[in-house]
């Protein structure tokens, strides 16, 4: 039940959406553009039209998934195998979306709005939202999210198209710099968003287990296995600390 009808007024909604657009239209949009420029170049390399690359940004909305799609097509894989590889690379959206929706959802939010929100879940908008949503009034969260997510999406779509024509012209050092932006920006966002020990543990296990997962687990499943193992280890240690503190605090 909305406590204050005025808090749902169109002016509040638009102000929140504008704030989302403003917060996205700086570093987040630039960083995403840098990573999608590379996807645009890849689309051209595999001989797809520019529009298909832009469409893949808007619809798939996951640079790693797009790399897998165009990379496996280039390697001549059968289309069903391509679909499986893309799907495996996107499994992370299941836990990410499940973790984000409770922050945005309010009683009575229609299911189609939740499905629409879920489409915009990708690393940049997710990490940013997980950081800012808890301190934001609930009625501002959904419009803010749509403002933020649509801004980065449009910027990324434009960058995909630009990259299609530009990436071949860049000097190698700059191209390498563009390829570093995604991992660097994701990592810094995660460091900035980490608050509790469980966040740091998950981050540490995720990075620390990666060399082993890549070496042992078949490619495609490696990230999934290490996410499950690393995340579960982080959670168990978090539980262990919590239980011990509870025991020490209540003798």
């Amino acid at each position, binding site marked *: 039940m909305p406590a204050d009808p005025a808090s749902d007024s169109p002016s509040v909604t638009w102000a929140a959406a504008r704030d989302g657009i403003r917060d996205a239209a700086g570093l987040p949009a630039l960083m995403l553009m840098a990573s999608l420029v590379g996807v645009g170049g890849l689309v051209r390399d595999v001989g797809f039209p520019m529009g298909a690359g832009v469409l893949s940004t808007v619809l*798939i909305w996951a640079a790693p998934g797009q790399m897998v799609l165009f990379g496996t097509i280039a390697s001549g894989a059968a289309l069903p195998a*391509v679909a499986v590889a*893309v799907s495996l690379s996107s499994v992370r959206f299941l836990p990410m979306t499940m973790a984000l929706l409770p922050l945005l959802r309010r009683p009575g939010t229609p299911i189609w709005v939740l499905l629409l929100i879920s489409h915009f879940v990708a690393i940049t908008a997710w990490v940013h939202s997980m950081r800012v949503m808890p301190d934001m009034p609930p009625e501002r969260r959904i419009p803010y999210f749509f403002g933020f997510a649509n801004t980065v999406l449009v910027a990324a779509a434009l960058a995909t198209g630009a990259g299609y024509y530009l990436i071949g012209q860049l000097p190698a050092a700059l191209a390498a710099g563009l390829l570093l932006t995604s*991992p660097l920006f*994701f990592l810094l966002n995660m460091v900035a968003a980490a608050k509790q020990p469980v966040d740091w543990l*998950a981050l540490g296990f995720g990075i620390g287990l990666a060399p082993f997962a*890549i070496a042992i687990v078949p490619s495609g499943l490696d990230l999934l296995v290490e996410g499950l193992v690393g995340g579960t280890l982080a959670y168990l240690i978090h539980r262990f600390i919590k239980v011990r503190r509870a025991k020490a605090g209540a003798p």
Partner: protein
Amino acid sequence: MIAWLEQVTGGLWPYLVVIFFGFLPSEIWRWLAVFFGRGIDENSEILVWVRAVASALLAGVVAKLILTPSGALVAIPLVWRAGSLVAGVAGFYLARRSILAGVIAGEALLITAAVYFSG
């Protein structure tokens, strides 16, 4: 299969490939999350675990992009690729938690290394 698609759809097949073999297999996880998540309380313990798994997965994506690079990054030795991430985190903290400063520090080191190694 692609030759067959070309014949049946004319020039549209790349778009259909993106929709049916890229968009749908990827989007299914987001939709499933909406349905799985409906009954879960915001403060429930299972969400702490789900969040930890999501964070570990993302950290794994970062590590994989550095450990098994593509394109122009291949020419740069691992120490410098990983060192650029470390420089980025150092820049972030030195500049009082500025993500922009972190990005600039990491990119500066990597591009310097790239100029050295790939000319």
